[in-house]
């Protein structure tokens, strides 16, 4: 991989600078995204024609689609000037491959990692400092072990080159077509980087597949694409390392995640998201589940200025199962609008959604969920549970579930509660000698436990630390 980068750096400098010029011109002429820019990206990546065609089609769809509007209580996207996206397609060239040295990182990021108490090597990986080199060493061995079993795990750009048949069939076709929403279309036009995971029939990948390294892999991590294909009877746990805050210049993250869960397969997708607080995080994540397949989404949303993200599972095959566990934490100036979508399109399907949120210092959290049970999805069941914890009356916590039930032989339940931290609980802990802050932290840690216990220990520790830091108000 490193030689690829060298190659890119050496040979494409001119193209990249030209590209930059194009970009500036586009901004000046107020045209927004242009076909020229898309062609440039595709050429830069040496992509096959079919991918370029998909990008161009997505661009056309993007241009014809309206911004989301009219959603009750939707986050304010007015500061997001889509015309201004252009400069962000390509972060400036210096940072394209990540910085070379820890000292070059923005203070905010360094500070965060220091406070997290994360070891230097891990910090480097998390922050994208020479991520490819550092992490390659770490992950190379694992990759070999998987490769023997036929598992493919590589970055998405590489997958386009090396596994065109699989990508051609699955990339933004049936799962997340660009026509899904404006930001999916945007993603389809300018996507870059991301992960490709293929697990053959019957193979269990025991270790979680972690994707720290991709943060800066091609320098355009904010439009990364993740494609996971789990064949019949396979099992994999994918962890998305969005835990590294992005550089301050990025203001839009519009990723795309597609998961194909084969018959009897089991996929868990975990995310700990901590984007910088000037980022608009507008993602589209979706899974299609075949008969008796199981999809599990685990996500912790900490960062960003505004998040609109509703991971979706389509229960397509009989007996398939979906689980969502999410936690959102919104501090000052943050609007985390997140939830879950489940389409029960086959009989005997089941889903459970457990959503927890914490809002503090004027932050807003919202659970926005859609459960659709199609006519004919007999004996399906869904249970949605939302709990919100609020710290003050500056903050807001909303719950907006939508349930569309077209089948009678079902069991549908939605429950939500909102409350402040119990005075009695705090009093109890204080009377045992804890100070007010520690008591609150402890209660919050207990509150989010359902999430942390689903994560590998290092992520759980990190999530806990992030929340503690948020509670102290000491995080960038």
């Amino acid at each position: 991989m490193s030689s690829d980068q060298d190659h890119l750096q050496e040979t494409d400098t001119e193209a990249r600078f030209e590209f930059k010029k194009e970009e500036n011109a586009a901004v000046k002429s107020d045209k927004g995204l242009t076909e020229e820019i898309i062609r440039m990206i595709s050429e830069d990546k040496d992509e096959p024609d079919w991918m370029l065609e998909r990008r161009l089609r997505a661009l056309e769809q993007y241009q014809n689609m309206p911004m989301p509007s009219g959603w009750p209580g939707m986050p304010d996207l007015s500061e997001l000037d889509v015309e201004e996206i252009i400069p962000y397609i390509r972060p400036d060239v210096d940072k394209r491959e990540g910085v070379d040295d820890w000292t070059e990182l923005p203070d905010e990021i360094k500070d965060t990692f220091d406070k997290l108490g994360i070891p230097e090597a891990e910090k480097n990986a998390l922050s994208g400092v020479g991520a490819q080199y550092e992490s390659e060493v770490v992950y190379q061995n694992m990759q070999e072990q998987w490769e023997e079993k036929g598992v493919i795990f590589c970055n998405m750009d590489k997958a386009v080159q090396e596994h065109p048949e699989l990508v051609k069939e699955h990339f933004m076709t049936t799962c997340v077509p660009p026509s899904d929403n404006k930001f999916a279309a945007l993603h389809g036009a300018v996507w870059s980087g991301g992960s490709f995971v293929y697990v053959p029939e019957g193979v269990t990948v025991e270790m979680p597949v972690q994707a720290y390294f991709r943060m800066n892999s091609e320098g355009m991590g904010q439009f990364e694409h993740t494609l996971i294909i789990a064949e019949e009877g396979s099992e994999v746990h994918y962890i998305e390392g969005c835990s590294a805050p992005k550089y301050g210049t990025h203001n839009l993250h519009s990723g795309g995640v597609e998961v194909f869960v084969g018959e009897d397969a089991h996929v868990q997708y975990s995310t700990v998201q901590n984007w910088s607080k000037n980022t608009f995080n507008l993602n589209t994540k979706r899974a299609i589940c075949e008969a008796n397949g199981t999809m599990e989404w685990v996500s912790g949303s900490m960062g960003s200025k505004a998040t609109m993200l509703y991971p979706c599972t389509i229960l397509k095959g009989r007996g398939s199962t979906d689980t969502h566990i999410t936690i959102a934490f919104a501090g000052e100036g943050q609007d985390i609008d997140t939830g879950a979508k489940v389409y029960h399109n086959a009989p005997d399907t089941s889903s459970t959604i457990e959503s927890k949120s914490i809002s503090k210092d004027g932050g807003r959290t919202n659970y926005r969920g859609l459960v659709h049970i199609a006519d004919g999805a007999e004996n399906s069941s869904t249970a949605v549970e939302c709990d919100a914890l609020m710290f003050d009356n500056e903050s807001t916590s909303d719950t907006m579930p939508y349930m569309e039930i077209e089948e009678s032989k079902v069991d549908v339940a939605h429950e939500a509660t909102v409350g402040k931290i119990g005075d009695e609980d705090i009093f109890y802990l204080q009377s045992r000698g804890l100070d007010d802050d520690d008591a609150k932290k402890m209660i919050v840690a207990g509150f989010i436990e359902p999430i942390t216990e689903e994560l590998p220990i290092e992520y759980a520790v990190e999530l806990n630390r992030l929340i503690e830091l948020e509670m102290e108000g000491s995080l960038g």
Partner: protein
Amino acid sequence: MSAGTQVHANLTEEQVREISDGLDEPDWLLETRLEALAALEDLEMPDVIRTPGRDWTNLHELDFESLVDPLNAAENKDQVGPEDAEVLPWSEAVADHEDLLQEHFGSIVDPQENYLTALSTALFSTGTVIYVPEGVDAEDVTVRTEQNSRSLFNYTLVITEESSSVTILERQSTGEEAAEQYYSGVVEVAAGENSYVQYGSLQNLSEDAYNFTVKRGVADTYATIDWIEGNLGTQLTKTEVSTTLSGDSSETQIVGAFYGHNDQHFDLDAKVWHRAEHTTADLVTRGITDDVARSVYEGVQDVGADAWDTSSYQRENTLMLSDESEADASPKLIINNHDTEASHSATVGQIDAEDLFYMTSRGVDPRSARNMLVEGFFVPVLEEIDVDELRDDLEELIGTRLRERE
């Protein structure tokens, strides 16, 4: 869709003037009507829930132009109440209590809130004002409206003074069977300090009818507004019941029961706005969908930033008796103050197979067992109704509809 498509070619100022003249209304009221008429052009239909790919209720398909026949309104009306409260037909209220009307008319439901409220304000020809003086406990106020014309626009205003109370039973039904009818009702309730209002409503219009209703109350300090909302008739109903708890320690309860069969479509909203301290709300709705009927429920509990010490609860349960029916629900919590205890829940399901098995194994035939279970399902709602007559009527209508079922 733009509301422009809904503008009536055949509605005129002259018609509105004629209605207003006929009721001997003062100029300000005529003006309010004319402004509402003029606003029709720019107003949208009431909000309906939208999820990917669909509007939960389609109001744009209704042909208001042919449904609305403003000068031929006809109804049979009972407006009765105890002697110590005033229960006045609209024209009497205009003559005797202009000051009350001027203070309250349109203050709770904005006439120009949407296309249908404006239409109702411009064209209403019948109404009731219920005024309960300080300290009076008024029971058994009855307002019964039988619609005998293509369209009917009804307006109701309830004002309770300090420490008074009233129970009101309103019923809407269809008289002479006309093919398609449109019934529109606006209800405003101003509950004074420490007063109590229970407003029960039983809508049993013909199943060819369309219905739009807004019932909204504002509760002052220590006041309570309880709503009972029974919906059985019409082919399409769009209704909202809501309370603004604007006084400290005010309370509200919204109890709903519906039973949709054939191709009925009910779009039912229950909403509460907590705007003061120590307020309490309890929203309970139970309903049935059968055949190809569809229910759409939106519940909102909105707790404002100043609403300290709020308690707010909401439950909605739908029982689906048929596979072809659809039950959609969106119970929303909007919480801006952390000193809140709030919960909501919604369930959809069918009759519990075990319950049914238990009863049939005790010798009850399956059909009776099913009917008993359905009737039992409504008990938590029926129990909340203070007015015996309303409870009995509702129970009977549910029972009848159930027994009609194959």
